[in-house]
């Protein structure tokens, strides 16, 4: 079997996001098994392990599943990612941290086993700024952007990037930290009300998202000027605020909604036989689609690995090679029934992070759905690339890692 | 106050110079005046009883003596020196130990450990040698343990050495408390109703202990007690308090016949 562990969290403070992701991740594998009989004929075995977003449980999950021949880890937690980076490297197992984790892991020269394609936090920050630039015809000189962020490793990630970008584009950056769990954000939103920034960018997770959207609505901040990172762009984040959330924007690097042919397969091979993960009510939601997308990438990488090595029953090391050689293009996605579900990109030895393409989705409170309002646009790799090199080299120095790919 | 430097007790012991002098002590709690302008002294080697009706301020007086209460007015002299503001633990180091009216043993510890705590003022090894244990710490522990075992023998509580004190009956707890106070080898021992809740047989024992301590170690003792029989028999001098005031002071005989004392406290003249 091809073993894909899913380190999920269906409990704890971040369950609201963890559940749909885990559902999507699982459903894709279920579908591939039922429809295609696995990858290249080898069935997939997904092992789910509950981490509760807790690093120690994450380690326990890792240790308990790696012996089963786990091919790739998708821990869905920046904290656990940091923990696992040295471990997976030593054990030779690849890890995919899609849209989260350690951004500088995009530098494949240093991080041999960690991948974070197609986009990372820093891309997100740049995508958001680019979107604002677009709206303002390329000039945001003198405007103010406020960053409302989860006061943790995750939330702090975009700060450096935004600082660089603010220098470059001449906007003013104002930082507002929100402590875990983020139920009480009065100070931050009063400050926003006072300072009247032109745009608010949010890096939130868990209850912080809902409260922020609600508070923004309360102070009648124009929702279309409020842009969340993809982790702040779930249905559950905006639904509680009701109509007031209309117009809120969130970044995304994959398709939203149910309008893809592949979901018919899901319906047929997963839902109808009663094999849907969880309650089966999450299909088509933003975070579900993300889990789904992650699983798709994993399966494609496995296929690539099978091709490269000519073996069906691949090992984690082969899987790693597959991931490093992964190419996703429109043709492939269309064939999978997921046209335009995500950007086209390819991974290389040097670049584990993909191109950093991201789109913007906007919430339609009336229809209760997200609408993609832009194409997958590139981020400012000039700025980000430099930062990635800087950070990853520091890591390499600290840990005596020699550069690869030369 | 008292011109004489020393006097002889009826049974022929010499009582020396004042160990502790209370001078015009006044203690108030909000509106309540617990002690009102009281002076008296306690002399080397004597057993000094303090008696009086409930709420007279006796326990408060002991609390003043060992620094737990700070009187609003008045001075305390200990061994000829005026006492400045001091914390109770410093006073303990000067050599004053006591027992309490409401037993204040360390409930989570065994009898032995409780009595060993009495030795704390004498134990000096540092933290590091404690961690190492072998050597100085163990030697010190053993030396003190020997002394404590003597006290345990003396109080006849060998059988409960390792029992947690919380489980002990009241009377034994009082005895352990006495043991803890004795272990400090105090110059002045303050006992707050050591015999409450005991029957005659046990009171006899306790009296014996108190007299022996006084005799053998020459410890000065101040004692609060409601059992007049005991007080009359073992005290050398008695202070009588009533509503915070001193209404009598003298030998048991003098006190017993004092009309004020009879009215306020004894009710009837006791035999």
């Amino acid at each position, binding site marked *: 079997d091809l073993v894909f562990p899913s380190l999920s969290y*269906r*409990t704890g403070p971040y369950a609201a996001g963890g*559940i749909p992701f885990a559902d999507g991740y699982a459903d894709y594998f279920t579908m591939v098994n039922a429809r295609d009989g696995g990858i290249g004929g080898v069935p997939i075995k997904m092992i*789910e392990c*509950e981490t509760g977003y807790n*690093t*120690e449980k994450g*380690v326990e999950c890792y*240790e*308990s599943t790696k012996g089963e021949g786990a091919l790739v880890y998708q821990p869905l937690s920046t*904290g656990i990612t*940091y*923990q696992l*980076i*040295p*471990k997976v*490297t*030593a054990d030779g197992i690849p890890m995919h941290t899609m849209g989260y984790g*350690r*951004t500088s892991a995009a530098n494949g020269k240093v991080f041999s086993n960690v991948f974070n394609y197609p986009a990372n936090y820093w891309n997100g920050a740049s995508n958001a700024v680019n979107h604002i630039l677009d709206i303002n015809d390329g000039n945001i000189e003198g405007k103010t952007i406020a960053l409302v962020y989860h006061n*943790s*490793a995750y939330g*702090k*990630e975009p*700060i450096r990037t935004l600082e660089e970008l603010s220098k470059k584009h001449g906007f003013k950056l104002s930082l507002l930290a929100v402590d*875990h769990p983020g139920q009480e954000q009065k100070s931050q939103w009063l400050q926003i009300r006072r300072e009247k920034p032109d745009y608010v960018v949010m890096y939130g997770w868990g209850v912080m998202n809902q409260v922020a959207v609600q508070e923004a609505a309360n102070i009648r901040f124009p929702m279309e000027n409020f842009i969340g990172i993809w982790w702040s762009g779930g249905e559950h984040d905006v639904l509680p605020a009701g109509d007031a959330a209309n117009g809120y924007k969130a970044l995304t690097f994959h398709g939203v909604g149910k309008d893809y042919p592949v979901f018919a397969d899901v319906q047929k091979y997963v839902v109808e036989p009663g094999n849907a993960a969880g309650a089966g009510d999450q299909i088509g939601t933003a975070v579900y689609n993300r889990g789904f997308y992650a699983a798709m990438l994993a399966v494609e990488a496995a296929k690539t690995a099978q091709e490269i090595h000519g073996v069906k029953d691949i090992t984690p090391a082969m899987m790693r090679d597959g991931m490093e050689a992964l190419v996703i293009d429109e043709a492939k996605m269309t064939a999978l029934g997921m046209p335009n579900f995500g950007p086209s990109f390819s991974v290389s030895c040097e670049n584990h992070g993909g191109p950093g393409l991201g789109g913007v989705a906007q919430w339609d409170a009336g229809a209760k759905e997200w609408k993609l309002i832009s194409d997958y646009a590139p981020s400012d790799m000039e700025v980000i690339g430099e930062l990635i090199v800087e950070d990853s080299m520091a890591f390499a120095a600290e*840990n005596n890692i020699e550069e690869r790919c030369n | 106050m008292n011109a004489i430097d020393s006097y002889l007790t009826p049974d022929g012991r010499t009582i020396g110079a004042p160990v502790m002098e209370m001078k015009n002590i006044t203690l108030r709690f909000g509106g309540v005046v617990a002690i009102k302008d009281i002076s008296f002294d306690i002399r080397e080697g004597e057993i000094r009883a303090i008696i009086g009706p409930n709420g007279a301020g006796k326990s408060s007086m002991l609390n003043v003596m*060992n620094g*737990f209460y700070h009187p609003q007015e008045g001075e305390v002299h200990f061994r000829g020196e005026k006492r400045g503001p001091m*914390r*109770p*633990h410093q006073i*303990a*180091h000067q050599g004053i*130990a*006591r027992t309490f009216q409401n037993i*204040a*043993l*360390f*409930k*989570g*510890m065994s009898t032995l450990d409780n009595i*060993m*705590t*009495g*030795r*704390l003022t004498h134990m000096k*090894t540092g*933290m590091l040698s*404690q961690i*190492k*244990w072998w050597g100085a*710490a*163990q030697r*010190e*522990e*053993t030396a003190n*343990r*020997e002394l404590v*075992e003597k006290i345990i023998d003396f109080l006849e509580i060998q059988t409960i050495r390792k029992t947690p004190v919380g489980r002990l009956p009241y009377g034994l707890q009082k005895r352990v408390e006495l043991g803890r106070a004795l272990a400090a080898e105090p110059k002045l021992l303050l006992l707050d109703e050591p015999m409450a809740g005991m029957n005659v047989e046990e009171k006899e024992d306790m009296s014996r202990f108190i007299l022996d301590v006084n005799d053998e170690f020459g410890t000065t003792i101040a004692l609060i007690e409601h059992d007049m029989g005991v007080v009359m028999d073992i005290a050398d001098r008695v202070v009588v308090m009533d509503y915070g005031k001193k209404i009598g002071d003298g030998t048991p005989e003098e006190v017993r016949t004092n009309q004020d004392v009879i009215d306020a406290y004894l009710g009837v003249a006791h035999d």
Partner: protein
Amino acid sequence: MIYREAGDFKTSYAKDQQTFPIAFDRWGYFITLAFAFLVVPFIINDYWINAVVLPFLIYAIAAIGLNILTGYCGQVSLGSGGFMAVGAYAAYKLMTGFPDLNIVFVIFLSGGVTALVGMLFGLPSLRIKGFYLAVATLAAQFFLVWLFNKVPWFYNYSASGQISAPERSIFGYAVTGANALPAVSYLFCLCFVVILAWAARNLTRGANGRKWMAIRDMDIAAEIIGVNPLKTKLTAFGVSSFYIGIAGAMLFAVYLGAAEVGEAFGISKSFLILFMVIIGGLGSIFGSFAGAAFMVLMPVLLKNVMVGQLGWPTDMAAHFEFVIVGGLIVLFLIVEPHGLAQLWRLAKEKLRLWPFPH
């Protein structure tokens, strides 16, 4: 009669003061130690070491530390998570600042730094008592976490604020970092545990321990018999934090390898350690081990049974885990409020009388 103490007479006070006065216990202890040192390293695998044994050993240290403060000295603290963070960050700064410093020193020094911080936060304990103090220690918890999150110097200005432990070795064997062999990090932790437990035992059986317990049982009376409350409480805070700091340093450097303060050393950690101490038994070194074992093993066991054996969905298993662990805690407290250690003691008392009921 399997378990006996009769006929086991002591001829000197020193003998009477030994840790395991009963020969049977003493042998059991030596055998356990020998097993832990000589057998376990050869049979242990990656899963056991990382999922169970390392956290058990490290939490046992933290539990001993908190037990000194709470169990022996009676000062309830909910700041352990914060103090562990101090240990971890101190270790990180020392490891990155002085790459040549031996890891053993790093860990002891981290404990020392934590001891200082602990004493600082222990100062209010002179006036604040009981639950007020417990809640007040949360100030330390929240403040320290905020501080390590906010001041980039602590995490060497890394972009995310994560710290990761570089590789350090001892006698040529890596103990930290990804290349550490399980047996090596196990033995490393075990040595610390044995030494620290032994030190704790010595500290608590003599004058020091009695001072702490006196303060715990009745601080006023303790002061009146000559115990300096401030000094005593501060030493308790100091020693306790020293242990907790070491545990924090090891948790970060040896076990997790990387940490983010809010996640790894958050308030739930404080509660976890307090749990261990109470479930294990306040005022008992053995209890600290028992409590740590219980709190580490129980969830793993439950998970393995429910998910691994019974094949339940992970979320349901996780919910049941909460229900069961919570229920068990309550049950334990009802059966024996003084913890596993007391349960063990009572069992021994029963055994001693066995086969007679009283």
